[in-house]
C-alpha cells in the first residue's frame, strides 16, 4: 500500500523568506501523480501544485515550486517570498493514476508565517 509521510508537523517562516516543506512517499508504481494541497483556517482544501512522475521537470506555480526526486521518492514544496496568507496546513498527496480513484494524504505540516 502506498504511504505518504510528512515529517514536519509544524514549521515557521519569516515573511518574505523562503521555506521548504518535506514529503516522502512509498510506492512500487512507476507512473503516478503527486499533489500539494493547502488548508487555510477556513478548512477548505485548495490545490497548490501537481507533479506527474513521468515528467522530470519540477512543477512551478508562481511562488510555489517543487523539488521532485523520483529515485528518492521525495516531493518537497518550496514557498518563496512567503506571505501572511500562506499560513495554513499543507498536505502532500499521492495518486497512482491507474484508475485508483483514491488520493493518499500525508498528515500535514502546519506553516506559520511571522510578520
Amino acid at each position, binding site marked *: 500500500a502506498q504511504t505518504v509521510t510528512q515529517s514536519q508537523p509544524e514549521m515557521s517562516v519569516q515573511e518574505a523568506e523562503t521555506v521548504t516543506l518535506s514529503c516522502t512517499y512509498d510506492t512500487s508504481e512507476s507512473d503516478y*501523480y503527486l*499533489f500539494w*494541497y493547502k488548508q487555510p483556517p*477556513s*478548512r*477548505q*482544501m*485548495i*490545490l497548490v501544485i*501537481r507533479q506527474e512522475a513521468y515528467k522530470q521537470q519540477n512543477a512551478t506555480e508562481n511562488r510555489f515550486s517543487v523539488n521532485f526526486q523520483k529515485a528518492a521518492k521525495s516531493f518537497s514544496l518550496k514557498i518563496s517570498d512567503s506571505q501572511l496568507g500562506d499560513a495554513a496546513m499543507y*498536505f502532500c498527496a499521492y*495518486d497512482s*493514476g*491507474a*484508475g*485508483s*480513484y*483514491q*488520493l493518499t*494524504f*500525508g*498528515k*500535514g505540516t502546519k506553516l506559520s508565517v511571522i510578520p
Partner: protein
Amino acid sequence: SQTIHQWPATLVQPVGSPLSLECTVEGTSNPNLYWYRQAAGRGLQLLFYSVGIGQISSEVPQNLSASRPQDRQFILSSKKLLLSDSGFYLCAWSPPGSLYEQYFGPGTRLTVT
C-alpha cells in the same frame, strides 16, 4: 467554471440521531465524487467515492453510507450517529475517467453530542 457546494456548513446532532450531508457540483458532467473525513489534527480519510449515478464504493467500514441520486449530487448519511462520527467532512470532485486532481468543497463541521 466548476463550483462545488456543501451544506450545512456546521451541524450539531445528538448521539443516535440521523444524518444527511449534501454535496452538489456545478459546471461539469459525470464527475467523480468523493467524501472524506478529517479528524482533529489529522489528515484526510477517504470514506466513499462514486464514478457514476448509483455507483458507490466504500473505503472504510463504518456507521455511514453514501448515495448518488443524481449526476452531480452526492449525499452522506447515517441512521444513528455515534460520538466517533464527529469531525470535518469534505466533499470533492474530479473530472470523469482516470483520477486527476480533486477539488474540494468548503466542508461541514459535524459535532455529535
